[in-house]
């Protein structure tokens, strides 16, 4: 999982991670305390060394002063090495704590704040008897899913699109995030290689994660359209049983914006969407 983006953008907020009950960052407070201990330790050692030197009287010769200086260095070096090691360990523990908080927050967000309310909407779609109302709920569901995907996946300025499959073509039915409304239409025309590959991805119930459209050797048809503003993307087939419904995509203008956790979020959201869009047979 990539790091958590800021509150305004998609993904959780790194700035708030590790904030204590009183609002003071936990790591900073612990770091100050450790530095205080280290300073106190250094002061005590310096005091002890100074007292030991002065007990025998100040050195009278240059050689004596050199010996005192060498002794001071010999005392200071292990103290410095120890303090460096402890500060490094403390920083590592702090970053591990921040990572744990980010991971836990993300899990809470995905399961508690997104999957739970969307699952309720999926249930409502199938409970509704009127066709108009059901279609309205389905439209709402598509929009909720793209909003959730754009906010949960880690790419900065991510954009999520649901392409609906109808009469052998896929068009954007819902979108959320940066940029203009998507205009791409995926068709099965012999000249539309990208369209053919996208339709195959849906038909085979596959997913595709591309880290960098400019760097990777892409499978045929997965290359971006000319002038595209994205560098990385995930596309996932939306289906339920044997019914193919469309494709859920998220893209970002920066490379390596998404990881396997984002892919799993996409897979889960695509299946939720499929469960809500599938027709009763």
């Amino acid at each position, binding site marked *: 999982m990539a790091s958590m983006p800021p*509150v*305004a953008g*998609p993904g*959780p*907020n790194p700035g*708030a*991670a*590790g*904030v*204590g*009950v009183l609002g003071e960052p*936990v790591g900073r407070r612990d770091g100050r305390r450790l530095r205080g201990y280290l300073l106190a330790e250094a002061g005590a050692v310096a005091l002890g060394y100074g007292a030991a030197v002065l007990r025998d009287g100040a050195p009278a010769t240059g050689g004596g002063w050199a010996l005192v200086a060498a002794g001071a260095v010999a005392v200071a070096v292990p103290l410095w090495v120890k303090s460096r090691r402890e500060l490094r360990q403390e920083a590592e523990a702090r970053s591990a*704590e921040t990572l*744990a*908080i*980010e*991971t*836990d*927050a*993300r899990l*809470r*967000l995905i399961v*508690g*704040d997104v999957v*739970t*309310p*969307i699952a*309720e*909407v999926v249930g409502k779609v199938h409970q509704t008897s009127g066709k108009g109302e059901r279609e309205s709920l389905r439209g*709402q569901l598509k929009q*909720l899913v793209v*909003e*959730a995907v*754009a*906010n949960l996946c880690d790419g900065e300025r991510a954009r999520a699109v649901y392409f609906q499959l109808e009469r052998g073509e896929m068009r954007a039915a819902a979108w*959320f995030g940066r940029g203009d409304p998507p205009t791409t239409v995926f068709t099965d025309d012999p000249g539309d290689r990208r369209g053919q590959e996208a339709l195959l991805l849906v038909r085979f119930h596959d997913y595709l994660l591309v880290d960098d459209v400019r760097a990777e050797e892409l499978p045929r048809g997965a290359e971006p359209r000319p002038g595209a503003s994205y560098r990385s993307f995930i596309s996932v087939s939306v289906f339920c049983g044997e019914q193919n419904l469309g494709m859920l995509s998220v893209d970002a203008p920066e490379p390596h914006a998404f990881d396997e956790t984002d892919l799993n979020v996409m897979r889960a959201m695509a299946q939720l969407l499929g469960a809500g869009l599938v027709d009763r047979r």
Partner: protein
Amino acid sequence: MMRGQVVPEEARAWTAGLLLATDYFAHARREAVAKASAAIRGRLRRARSEDRGRSR
């Protein structure tokens, strides 16, 4: 003891289109981070006190 709504009011407001996704996610993210922070710090505190108990 913990008791609450399975689908909270703010989540219902978002799914019903009464709350913008950006507002909903900003709020949800802040809540999630605060709760996660408290939970992780609590777990770490318990682990430290268990370690201290074992080392005695």
